């Protein structure tokens, strides 16, 4: 589903943010990316949804080589990818419903269908009772669930999450992790960048550790218990 071949990316004049990355993530996998701040987690995720292009190497997502995609084709790629952020990136002047419906509006769905599908996902996220509230009035955990609903409402093939639990308490973290797992069970490939060790230990999924733009360690799902030092 995701393949990176010899990918190097440097921001202007700075040392490479990613250096010679080779990585394969299969369809339906659940992967954690970890590492200290500045290790390149966010840069790697941004590469995957076409917000950045590498200086060298190839990035293949869902069979498409992002490095050779035209700019106008990037939106089409993003329609099969859901993205979630630490700061949620919600539209605060709009309601919960409108924030989620936007994904389907972009796809050109009819109004009635948008209504049904949006309420369905809000129900799954246990936030359907607050559908007509402005998102500003929600708690952090609720806002993240709205962001997740927006990312998952069109059943994306890939879900990318950048520090999704950074602003949440333990109860909310667990709830968000369960949503990721459910999406994964339904067939979505999930990539979560986090340095939340508890979240990683709790989930026992494949782990990729980055340091200064390089992959320094990979722990497969089966071997997770053998890993002592994450």
């Amino acid at each position, binding site marked *: 589903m995701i393949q990176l071949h010899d990918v190097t990316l440097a921001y202007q004049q700075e040392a490479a943010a990613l250096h010679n990355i080779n990585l394969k993530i299969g369809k339906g996998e659940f992967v954690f990316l970890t590492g200290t701040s500045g290790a390149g987690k966010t840069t790697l995720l941004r590469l995957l949804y076409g917000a950045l292009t590498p200086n060298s190497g190839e990035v293949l997502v869902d069979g498409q080589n992002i490095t050779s995609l035209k700019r*106008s084709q990037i939106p089409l790629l993003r329609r099969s990818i859901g*993205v979630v952020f630490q700061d949620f990136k919600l539209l605060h002047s709009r309601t919960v419903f409108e924030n989620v419906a936007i994904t389907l509006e972009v796809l050109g769905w*009819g109004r009635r*269908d948008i209504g049904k*599908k949006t309420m369905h996902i809000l129900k799954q996220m246990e936030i359907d009772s607050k559908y007509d509230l402005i998102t500003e009035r929600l708690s952090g955990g609720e806002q993240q669930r709205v962001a997740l609903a927006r990312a998952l409402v069109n059943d994306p093939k890939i879900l990318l999450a950048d520090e999704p639990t950074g602003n949440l308490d333990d109860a909310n973290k667990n709830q968000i992790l369960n949503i990721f797992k459910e999406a994964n069970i339904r067939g979505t490939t999930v990539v979560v960048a986090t340095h939340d060790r508890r979240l990683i230990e709790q989930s026992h999924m494949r782990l990729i550790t980055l340091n200064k733009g390089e992959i320094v360690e990979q722990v497969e799902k089966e071997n997770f218990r053998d890993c002592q030092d994450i």
Partner: protein
Amino acid sequence: MSKWKKKTSGTARIYRRPTLESDVFGGRVGFFLTRAISNIRQNVFVNAVTIGTITLALLIVSLFLLIFVNLESAVENWSERVQVTVYFDKELTGQEQSSFREKISALSGVLRVNYVTRDEALKRFKVRLRGQETLLEGVRSEILPTSFEIALNSTHRETDSVENIVTKLKQIQGITEVQYGEEWVRRFNSFLNFMRLLGALLGGFLVIAVIFIVSNTIKLTIYSRRDELEVMSLVGATRFFISAPFLLEGLIQGLAGSLLSLALLYGIYEAFLQNAGSFITFDPAASGLSFLPVEYISGLLLSGVLLGFVGSLTSLKRFINV
């Protein structure tokens, strides 16, 4: 029938992608328009600021235009005084009159030809010397010349054209003396050129200032909503899909701004300017300023719409990164 169909397999996707709204004719346009209107309702303050700026900017331009248009029509009236007179020592016979009239009228730039007889000339002389009629005692019409007064087209009132006509008049056999108030025509023309230059300069500066202010206001309002642009691009919206509601919003803002500015201009005109014609024409008998002609009004409306649209278009280019 519902477009939603459940798949039979268990863990696979529950829903199939339904019919696109864009499959229906006009669906997208309706969607973008609805989105633009709801955006305006959700961002009332920002929209009010933009519409207010466009209104004020266009009001300044339209006030300038109103004054300029009236000044120009006043000048047009003055320029009617530019005329050429051909003098004759003798009274012309009816045949001579019509022959000269025909030859003069055939010249390009001649608007009207009027024959002034000796008696008519004396009458005018008397009117001009009213109160001092004693000066004219013993003066008889025979000592006055007869003449043709030639009014010129508005396009032939500049010094060069007048001189050109004078030269051609002198070439007509039988015409020896031609007068046209050379000094007055020269001064009038330099005043006219000065006024046009001043108008173009002031108008140019105003238009540049208006474009600068309005485009920056729109840029700021779009900057304040850059999160929205980012979210739209994250969920896979194309550049067109993100831009369309903003562009429609710009169109609506421009139209609203120009309509408001015209309404305000009309209010100001009704309240203050309608009877203020004497300030501009220096003529106390002037009937007052006239409102902007229809072509100027439609021009202002179009400029407002264009300002809103192009302002949004250039700002969006900067903030959308797909």
